[in-house]
C-alpha cells in the first residue's frame, strides 16, 4: 500500500518567497528587493517586542556561531551587532584588527579562512576597503553581513534609518528625505539612497560641492546647495558626520566654516514652516553638523535609531541564519 503524505497547498511557494530573503548574504542594499526590505522590517517588529520583554533573549540561533570581524574602529555598530547576536543566543567571537595578526602582514582572506576553520557559520565584517564583503562572500563558505565596507555601503544602518522613519511616520513611501554632509565619503549616504528609493521615498542631498560624488545625479538624487532650501523641502533630515579621517585633502576651509554654512541649529529649525525630523547615524560632532540643543531635542530620533538598530540586526541575522546549512547536509 502506497502512503501519501499530506499535500502542501499549491500556493505555498508564494508564501516561501515571502518568508525568505532573496539573497544569501547581506552585502549591500543594492542587492535587496523592496520585498526583502519589508520582510526585514516585519521581522524587526517582532524582535523589537522581544527586546522590550523582561527577558530579552530567544534561543533561535543557539547552534550558530558568528564572528564579528572589525578591521576598522566602531562602537555602536559593533555593540549593536554583538547584542543582537547574544539576544538570539548565537555564540559570538570578536576580532578587531588592532590586536591581531593583521598587523603582522596576514591577508584578509587568510585571516578570515582561519576563523572559518574554527567552524563559524556567519561573519559580520567591517573593512576600510570598498567591496571587502563582496570579495569575502565569493571566497568563503559562510554567510556574510556587511557592517560597512569603506566608502561603499553600510546596509544595516540604512535599514534601521528607514525603519525609524517607518516607525515615526507609518510608512516610508512618499516621504522627502535630505541627506546632509559628506556624501562623497559616506557609506551611510549611499546605502540610505538605495534603501529609501527602493521604498518609494524621495531623496536629496545637501553639502559642500566638493563633497558631492560625480555620479550623484545618475542615482536620481537631487543636489540642493543651500541648507535652508533643503530643510524647507524635506520631512526628514539625515545628518552625517564629517569624516575627517577619510579626507585625504582639504575639501572645505575649516570645520568652523562648515558649521556656519551646513550646521543645523535651533534658529534654522524654528525658522522653518514645519517641524522636521532630525536623524544622525552617530557619532555626533556636537557643534559641527548639529548643535547640542538640536541633538537633544524632541525632533531628533537619534536614540530611537540606536534602539531600532538592535532589532534590525536581529532580523537580518535571523533571516540569514535560516539559510545556514545544518550539520550533515
Amino acid at each position, binding site marked *: 500500500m502506497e502512503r501519501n503524505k499530506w499535500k502542501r497547498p499549491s500556493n505555498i511557494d508564494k508564501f516561501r518567497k515571502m518568508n525568505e530573503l532573496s539573497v544569501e548574504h547581506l552585502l549591500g542594499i543594492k542587492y535587496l528587493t523592496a520585498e526583502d526590505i519589508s520582510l526585514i522590517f516585519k521581522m524587526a517588529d517582532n524582535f523589537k517586542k522581544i527586546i522590550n520583554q*523582561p527577558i530579552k533573549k530567544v534561543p533561535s540561533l543557539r547552534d550558530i556561531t558568528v564572528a564579528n570581524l572589525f578591521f576598522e574602529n566602531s562602537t555602536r555598530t559593533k555593540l549593536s551587532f554583538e547584542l543582537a547576536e547574544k539576544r538570539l543566543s548565537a555564540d559570538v567571537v570578536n576580532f578587531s584588527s588592532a590586536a591581531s595578526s593583521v598587523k603582522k602582514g596576514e591577508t584578509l582572506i587568510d585571516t578570515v579562512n582561519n576563523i572559518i576553520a574554527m567552524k563559524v557559520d556567519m561573519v559580520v565584517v567591517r573593512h576600510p576597503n570598498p567591496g571587502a564583503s563582496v570579495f569575502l562572500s565569493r571566497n568563503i563558505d559562510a554567510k556574510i553581513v556587511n557592517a560597512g565596507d569603506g566608502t561603499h555601503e553600510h546596509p544595516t544602518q540604512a535599514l534601521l534609518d528607514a525603519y525609524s522613519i517607518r516607525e515615526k511616520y507609518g510608512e516610508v513611501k512618499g516621504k522627502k528625505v535630505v541627506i546632509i554632509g559628506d556624501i562623497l565619503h559616506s557609506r551611510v549616504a549611499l546605502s540610505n539612497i538605495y534603501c529609501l528609493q527602493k521604498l518609494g521615498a524621495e531623496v536629496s542631498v545637501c553639502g559642500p560641492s566638493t563633497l558631492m560624488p560625480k555620479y550623484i545625479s545618475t542615482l536620481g538624487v537631487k543636489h540642493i546647495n543651500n541648507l535652508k532650501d533643503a530643510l524647507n523641502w524635506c520631512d526628514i533630515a539625515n545628518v552625517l558626520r564629517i569624516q575627517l579621517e577619510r579626507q585625504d585633502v582639504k575639501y572645505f576651509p575649516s570645520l568652523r566654516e562648515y558649521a556656519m554654512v551646513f550646521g543645523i541649529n535651533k534658529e534654522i529649525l524654528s525658522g522653518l514652516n514645519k517641524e522636521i525630523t532630525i536623524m544622525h547615524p552617530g557619532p555626533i560632532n556636537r557643534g559641527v553638523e548639529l548643535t547640542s540643543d538640536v541633538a537633544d531635542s524632541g525632533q531628533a530620533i537619534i536614540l530611537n535609531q540606536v534602539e531600532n538598530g538592535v532589532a534590525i540586526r536581529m532580523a537580518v541575522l535571523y533571516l540569514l541564519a535560516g539559510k*545556514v546549512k545544518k550539520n550533515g547536509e
Partner: protein
Amino acid sequence: MKAEKVIINKEKFNIIIERLSYQLIENHANFENAVLIGIQPRGIHFCNRIYTKLSSIVSNKDIKVGDLDITFYRDDFRRRDDPLEPQAIDINFSIEGKNVVLIDDVLYTGRSVRAAMDALLAFGRPKSVELLVLVDRRFSRHLPIQPNYVGKKVDAISTEKIIVEWKETNGKDQVILINSEK
C-alpha cells in the same frame, strides 16, 4: 481516495467551549489569579472564544488574556522546508505567580507546547501552567506532555490531518479530519 470527515460540528463546538469554560471555573473560580494565553497563530481564536464565554459567566470582567508567539523558541529552526512566519506577541501583564492556562487548537507532537512553555518564562515565573486544547491527537506525542482540559480526543494516524476551521477565518466553526491516503 481523499476522505473528509467532520468530527466536531457547529453545535458540538459550542457545547465543548461551554464545557471547557465550566471546567476552568471549577479550578480557577473567578480568575483572580489565573490568565489565559493563546498560542499563535491558531490557538488565539480558540482562546478568544473561551475568554468571551468565561466573561459572560464569571463576575470578574477583567480576565487577563494574551497571545504568545513561539516562532523564535521552536526547536525546528533551519530544519523545516518552509520558513516560519512570526506573529505578534501580545502579553501586557506579568505572569509572575499566576496560574497560566495555555490554549491551543490541536495537540499533536507536543513540540509547540514545549516551545510555548519556554517562551512563557520570558514574562515571569508562573505559579502553574495548564494546557487546554480543542483536539488531542492521542498516541502521537514526541514529548511527555499531556493536556489538562480536552475538547475531544481523536485517534488519527500520521497520514491523516486535522483541520480546525473558525468562523473568523473560514466562515464556519468545525473540525474536520482529512485522510489523504490512497
